[in-house]
């Protein structure tokens, strides 16, 4: 099958990473839109949550699709990680001409952190959600805990770092590298993760600092 031989190649694997990365990024964008409703108050957030879960079949199908995309990203990422282990560190003097970003060095580790975070997150708000508690209330309940909030904030920072390398790397893998757009791409690779960090990271801070008094 052509896909099997495709995924066996080095560039094929990177393209799977880039494609799944792009799809995960679009999911994040929609997720950020919904969660931003929190800043408008519990009422609006509940309206959004009820609206979303008014389509249980669609949520199930898309959730399953998302899981598959996520597993592809993690699975191929792990393949690449173990492949890289074999070839690294081979000179007596280790220097880098380009002092490469912290983000690119730590991709597998920020990725692993996000993986753990997602397990916690999905169980907290999905499978492990207590019966009869509205999600808008649940958010407030969880984030009033200091360590829970801290865990979320650290995870969003990890996500931003991951995206900082991931965003431009994805475009380069797709073959998008052109002097006309490179300036824009290098701005976006900082801006996009920052926007997610502000929207998502703002939520626990919103509840922790008490700015959510009128929530």
């Amino acid at each position, binding site marked *: 099958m*052509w896909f099997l031989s*495709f995924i*066996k*190649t*080095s*560039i*094929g*694997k*990177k*393209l799977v990473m880039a494609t799944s990365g792009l799809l995960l990024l679009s999911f994040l964008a929609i997720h950020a839109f919904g969660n931003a409703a929190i800043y408008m108050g519990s009422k609006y957030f509940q309206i959004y949550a009820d609206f979303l879960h008014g389509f249980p079949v669609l949520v199930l199908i898309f959730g399953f699709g998302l899981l598959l995309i996520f597993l592809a990203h993690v699975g191929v990422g792990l393949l*690449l990680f173990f*492949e*890289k282990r*074999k*070839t*690294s560190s*081979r*000179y*007596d*003097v*280790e*220097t*880098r*001409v*380009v002092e*490469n970003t912290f983000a*690119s060095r730590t*991709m597998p580790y920020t990725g692993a952190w996000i993986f753990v975070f997602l397990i916690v997150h999905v169980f907290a708000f999905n499978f492990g959600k207590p019966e009869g508690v509205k999600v808008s209330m649940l958010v407030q309940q969880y984030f009033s805990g200091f360590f829970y909030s801290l865990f979320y904030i650290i995870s969003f920072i990890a996500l931003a770092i991951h995206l900082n*390398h991931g965003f*431009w*790397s994805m475009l*380069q*893998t*797709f*073959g*998008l*590298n*052109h*002097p006309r757009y490179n300036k824009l791409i290098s701005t976006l690779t900082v801006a996009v993760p920052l926007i997610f960090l502000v929207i998502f990271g703002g939520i626990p801070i919103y509840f922790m600092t008490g700015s959510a008094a009128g929530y």
Partner: protein
Amino acid sequence: MMSTIDLTLKIWRQKNSDALGDFETYILRDISTDMSFLEMIDVLNEQLTREGKEPVAFDHDCREGICGACGAVVDGVAHGPDLETTLCQLHMRKFKSGDTIVIEPFRSIAFPIKKDLLVDRSALDRIIQAGGFVSVNTGGTVDGNSIPVSTETAELAMDAASCIGCGACVASCPNGAAMLFTGAKIAQLSLLPQGHPERKERARSMVTQMDKEGFGYCSNEKECELACPKGISIRNIARMNREFLKSFLLGE
């Protein structure tokens, strides 16, 4: 006035591909700063020969930066500290008296060490053999300007074609990838009309061969771009990625 410097060299010595190598330290005195790096090693080798020791084996040919034969990792940087310079064009004026210089061969799984600083880079040749060419039917010679090519495109193709195949991109890549090399070779042909008929097979077979040789994948760290003595841009890797994707999605 000619200035001279004294140096301590730590050079990787290895008898053959199977032997275990190690660093040997040598002291060199009164090295002219006008010498090239390879001339400096020549002086060392003279000294070693006089002492009845085995000279350091290294690859070199034109010594004017255009053939791609020379290359070693100097203090952790392929071709040494000068940007867009091959090892033979690196001059000793870049170093100070009393410096210790560590010289290692280009290392990669796909580049077995033959002796000392000499590595077998024929893996790159096999990538070219897999598709880095255009097939031309024999017959009457076609007029050189019968197919119009814009200057911009010709320049881009020329930039890619300036790759001398030295292997510095592989040596400097944290992941031992030959993406810049293969990318440049695919780009130079895919940009020009003469390379179009075979572009789909070319991208696929060259990438497949590259993987088979044991080169790594691209982790987008941009290190190759700066190690490249010809300043070849990773834009060529992006171009290869596009070619490869097209070949897989739309090829036969």
